[in-house]
């Protein structure tokens, strides 16, 4: 079993990245990541194996990030950098287009916010599978281990979550 600092080093990027994908804001994502690790520290003696820590970290990150998203009142600024590359240079949230123009960036950011808010409106058990699969690209088997459910349940929940998302996103457009 790793000590707390080793766990931090191993999972810090994943926790931060998941928060950032859900929130789209560096400061908020950093605050959530900080809360997650502080909570992990408080509960650390209860964990018996590394896989338990990993599952717990993912679940708590999704929960805290979505709670932060629901509480958020201000709109996101498109001009703020949302991360740093390995050299420490700021990067902007533009995965689909290498150098989009401002209108395209606005469209992308609007799309992201619609999806984030739609996910925040799902029941908790569906939020978890959607974030882990759609945003993190994790396999069914891995998701099953993280959430403590079977692979079949992962697939069924994902189907229902996607159906609900589809309706939410359609309502947003209308």
């Amino acid at each position, binding site marked *: 079993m790793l000590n707390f600092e080793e766990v*931090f080093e191993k999972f810090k990027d994943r926790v*931060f990245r998941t928060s950032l994908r859900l929130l789209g804001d560096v400061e908020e994502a950093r605050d959530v990541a900080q809360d997650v690790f502080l909570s992990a520290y408080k509960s650390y003696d209860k964990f018996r194996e590394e896989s338990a820590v990993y599952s717990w970290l993912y679940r708590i990150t999704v929960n805290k990030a979505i709670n932060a998203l629901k509480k958020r009142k201000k709109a996101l600024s498109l001009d703020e950098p949302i991360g740093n590359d390995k050299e420490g240079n700021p990067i902007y949230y533009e995965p689909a287009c290498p150098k989009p123009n401002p209108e395209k960036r606005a469209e992308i950011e609007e799309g992201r916010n619609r999806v984030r808010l739609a996910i925040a409106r799902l029941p908790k058990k569906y939020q978890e599978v959607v974030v882990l699969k759609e945003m993190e690209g994790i396999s069914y088997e891995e998701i099953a281990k993280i959430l403590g459910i079977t692979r079949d349940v992962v697939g069924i929940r994902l189907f229902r979550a996607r159906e609900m998302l589809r309706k939410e996103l359609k309502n947003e457009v209308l």
Partner: protein
Amino acid sequence: MKCCKEKISFYIDGEMAQAEKEAFIKHLEGCGFCTKLVEELSSQKEMIENLFVRLEAEAPIELKSRVMARIEERRAFNWWPVILRRIAVAGCMAGLVFALMMSYPKKKEEGYMSQIVANSIEEREEAYLLREQTKVFLNRCL
């Protein structure tokens, strides 16, 4: 239909065994509803992946120092005043409850139940008399 619908996620995520996949594809050939749903959910999945999955970001360098600083604050915090205050509050509450219980008048057990029964009989007799008197009064009026 329900059992086929719920296989859609397995299919679009490539999580189906080969034999099952072939059977599902055959099903799709004859089912317009599932085919349409597969198209819509596949394109939604692709949209979300394009928006989110390609972002690779590393945790800010200062995250570790912030977390460690908060942990140190927590370790250095003197918990004794908080604990003592809580014990004091709990003690006061317990004392208050005890005092209330002691001041509540005690009923003598001896004859208590018979007193209750007697009161009940007396009340019924009074109610009976009242009804009879009311009948007499009404008869006189009418």
